[in-house]
């Protein structure tokens, strides 16, 4: 129940799941007097889609930022895609932050050009396919789009890299339920079997069908790591129900 290592195969091909994608030991990060991550340990393999769950302020976003290499001044050992967070790891990690990180005035085609120019693992054909799948046009400007449409563009680009690890921070928050399903379908469309997708979310119910495993956090630490099927069988409830059960104290 409190194990912080995930090594057993999930839904996807067992042969592809022998590599460690993320290894974190004693990770601590403070924001002034507030401890956001408190000696966190975590090991995650490749070849899975893993949900990162927890209440507000438990450190999910901080963990993803550290892994993505955009948050310094932390202690502990972090390895992602075989590298410490930095230029080498960023070549193998696709990060989708919980923010509109593309220029407002840019057309979709210009954003595609940015990815093509900077990321050698960017698959332009896959991006075009995903953009079409989401019902968007490359001539559209981001500032003319709704939040859901912008999210689709960002996901199409982030998922079109042939990365080892995808770090997705709240990819479907603030999007209506119908759009959520389309986005989730797009996320897993043509996904490489040997990559790790690590997704933070509050929308457990929507994400549950695509998850192989979950990591639950509380107070900057990993509370629970487990495979979705095992946890469902062990607790005789869905992951959504388990989430409500575990975190009901903080909702009061």
């Amino acid at each position, binding site marked *: 129940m409190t194990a912080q290592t995930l090594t057993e195969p999930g839904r996807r091909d067992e042969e592809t799941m022998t590599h460690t994608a993320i290894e974190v030991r004693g990770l601590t990060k403070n*924001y002034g007097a507030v401890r956001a991550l408190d000696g966190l340990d975590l090991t995650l393999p490749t070849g899975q889609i893993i949900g990162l769950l927890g209440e507000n302020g438990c450190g999910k976003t901080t963990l993803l*930022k550290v892994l*993505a*290499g*955009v*948050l*310094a*001044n932390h202690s502990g050992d972090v390895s992602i895609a075989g590298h410490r967070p930095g*230029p*080498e790891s*960023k*070549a193998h*990690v696709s*990060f989708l*932050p919980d*923010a*509109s*990180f*593309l*220029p407002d*005035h840019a057309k979709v085609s*210009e954003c595609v050009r*940015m990815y093509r*120019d*900077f*990321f050698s693992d960017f698959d332009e054909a896959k991006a075009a396919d995903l953009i079409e799948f989401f019902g968007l046009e490359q001539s559209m400007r981001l500032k003319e789009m709704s939040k859901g449409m912008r999210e689709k563009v960002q996901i199409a680009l982030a998922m079109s890299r042939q990365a080892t690890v995808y770090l997705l921070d709240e990819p479907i928050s603030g999007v209506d339920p119908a759009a959520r399903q389309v986005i989730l379908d797009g996320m897993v469309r043509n996904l490489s079997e040997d990559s790790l997708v690590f997704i933070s979310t509050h929308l457990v119910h929507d994400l549950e069908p695509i998850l192989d495993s979950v990591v639950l956090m509380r107070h900057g630490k990993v509370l629970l790591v487990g495979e979705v099927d095992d946890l469902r069988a062990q607790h005789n409830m869905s992951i959504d129900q388990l989430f409500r059960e575990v975190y009901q104290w903080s909702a009061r």
Partner: protein
Amino acid sequence: MVGTLIKHEALRTRRWLTVVFGLATLVTLMGALMAWTGWPLISQLGVILSFVGVGAFLAVVQVGLAYDYWRSSYSKTGYFTQSLPVKGATIYWSKLLWGCVVTLVAIVWNVVLALVAYLGSASSMRVTEPLSQLRAAWTGMLEILPAVAVIGLALAVVVSFFATLVQYYFAASIGSESRMNRLGIGGPVLVWFGLYLVMQMLLLLGIVAIPLALGSGSDGGLALVSLNFLSVMVENQTAGAMPLGFVPVLALSTAVLVSRTVVSWNRKVSLA
């Protein structure tokens, strides 16, 4: 990769730079035209307008570059920049190089705009034959200063604008580190005010500690002269020469600011 980074710097900044260059040109031309009419009030307003266009242009360009640097590195779009598989220092050098190129072009354009403003305002300022007067002033300057000194002074002006950019970028980077990143743009603004005060003190110290100045030599030409700036200040005298003590201070501080900003890019990036 540096080429690609600079290409995207150009693509990202071209819109607002076009607007700033266009507006400055429009304001200066309009002002010069109004001044040229010689009509009472209109011409006086024109003189003010054209010189506002000239005077504000470079400052607006450099502040705009600093804001764009902060926004593309540490605000929302900073997530893209900081996720690139490139060493932070390489991104910084590319941004600084592009900023210097833009500044250089803006300086040249500012000279052109200043010329337009001067010609338009000449009659209002009772300057007859403005071009001849300009030529005479230029010739007069060359009589006092050797050509190499004129080139040196022009280069010093350009480099001082580059140093200003280095200071802005330093403030943006240090003000966005973990201690202040929750303040948003407030962090860089605070750091810049602090840096401004420190720089003023350091420059004054340099002028006082290094008693060298550019002044009139025994033959009437320009020469390096000794100047005790402290006694000039204490005795409330006129210096009569341009102190040079600020030059090594500015050069050294710029080198320090650049190296600290590189450290920030390589090891201290903390996006809020």
